[in-house]
């Protein structure tokens, strides 16, 4: 059983990740793939707000560190996947290419105004992912 969860550092995504891990606990040999997408639209601003390339990498890793720690507590095996591009497209591509049995994703991300402009990531993923998708509120 391969469960994937997409995280972006938001509280909502953290709840989704916890749900994914708790789901994995109920299955034997279930693994969780933690997907983080570095949004191409934000790279410039993130870069300027970090002291160096190394500190930017560190900041990105911090965004899913809590999830990895929680999985370790529950003794669930995880892999972390850092992708770059447009979040919805990258999540869909990865999920469809990697034989994922179940995708868990938060229903809303970081910013309501941005969601109005670029559209909801979760909606797009829900539409195009080939595996069952769980939306966590």
């Amino acid at each position, binding site marked *: 059983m391969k469960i994937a969860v997409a995280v972006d550092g938001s509280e909502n995504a953290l709840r989704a990740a916890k749900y994914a891990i708790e789901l994995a606990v109920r299955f034997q040999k279930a693994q969780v793939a933690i997907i983080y997408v*570095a949004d191409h639209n934000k790279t410039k*601003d993130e870069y*300027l707000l970090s002291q160096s390339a190394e500190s930017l990498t560190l900041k990105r890793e911090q965004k899913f560190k809590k999830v990895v720690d929680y999985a370790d507590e529950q003794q669930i095996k995880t892999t972390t996947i850092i992708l770059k591009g447009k979040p919805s497209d990258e999540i869909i591509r990865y999920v469809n290419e990697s034989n994922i049995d179940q995708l868990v994703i938060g229903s809303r991300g970081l910013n309501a105004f941005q969601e109005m402009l670029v559209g909801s990531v979760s909606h797009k993923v829900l539409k195009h992912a080939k595996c069952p998708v769980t939306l966590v509120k």
Partner: protein
Amino acid sequence: MLTMREQWFGNVRADILAGIVVGLALIPEALAFAFIAGVDPRVALYASFTISIVIAFVGGRPGMISAATGAMALVVVSLVAEHGLHYLLAATILTGIIQFLLGIFGVANLMRFIPNSVMLGFVNALGIMIFLAQMPYLVGGGILTYVFAIITLILVYVIPRFFTRVPAPLVAIVVMTVIAFLSGAHLQTIGDLGTMPATLPVFLLPDIPLTFETLKIILPYSLALAVVGLLESLLTAQVLDDMTDTPSNKNKEARGQGTANFVNGFFGGMAGCALIGQSIINAKSGGRGRLSTFIAGAFLMFLIIVLGDLVVDIPMPVLVGVMIFVSATTFNWGSFKFLKQAPKSESIVMIVTVGIILYTNNLAIGVIAGIILSSLFFVARISKVTVVKKGGTYEVNGPLFFASTTKFIEAFEHIHEEKITIDFENSHVWDESAVGAILKVKQKLEERNCTVQITGLNASSEKLYEQFT
């Protein structure tokens, strides 16, 4: 690193498509930057064409887009106003020479020394200046001017929600120009302010006296252009490295920027550098190779020659609306959060950088002032030395060097004991000043009949200490 062949033809289909998109996206800004610099649109369009084509061959970051830019335009405003176009072309050629030499001397390695607070100050000041440069075309233009600018601005933000194939600014420009045309609204157009080129650029020597006087006029501008151009280009290269997960040769890019500006000046173009916005558009559209940069420049020129007669009908308020969007994306809105969270010294560096740039109207001066200020803060921060007494042992904490010796010496001024140990376990002796200070302390204590023992020096500190004793 990929071979030259792969850098050109490793991604042909996506590179061609992305290059076309970027070629479209280059037009509005090239026009607007020409107006900022106070030159004919031709000068910026020729620059964008020549720089793109040359840098496609000699750049160090495949897939990066270089052309006429706002940062460079803002530097040359007073040069153009006081001395005219030909001095700008000469300054562009000299900028190319300076950048090429800096590239040979490995200038890119110095980027590490520019803190992000200075870079933030740079982009924020740039955003503000681009915004302010639009005001003359907006203020006092009547109600219709405002209406067109505001509707354009709204369109630029809303269009990507539904349609992302063609850059939103271009769609907005086409829609608004058609509306202006059909409604017969009387608005200032690009044609009222300048002419479009109808031919490819040709080789020409700037018409200037080759004297020391001329050099004295253009050199300060060329130095500022060289600094600003390299700063924006190397920042853009770093952002692209991260977006595409590929490395780039920054010193080669610096030499490439130099070559491109050198050639560009002889073909009637104003100095340019990498464009962050367009480079990101290229990467997002799938452009990765040198071909994408080449196509962007070639397609831009093709469009201008074919569509030049239509471009002159674009109303200025529409271009202003697009440029307000550009200034808003240039400005880093995360800076406000940064000011709250970052250490005070970094916030001060950012604010001072912005302040000096806006006050002097010179991006280069602000950046250099910011770097100096942040270096001073850094030295001040690491020059904190404390001495803690533990029994008969005095522990020195913090590095000992020219800036921290005074505090160290003061700490031993009022000691009246017969025998003490100075422990350097948590310190490092960096230079002659440090050794001098230790010897001075030792000597003064011995004058007061106190025996001093030095312990805990690490290997390199010990070596330095032994050299002088």
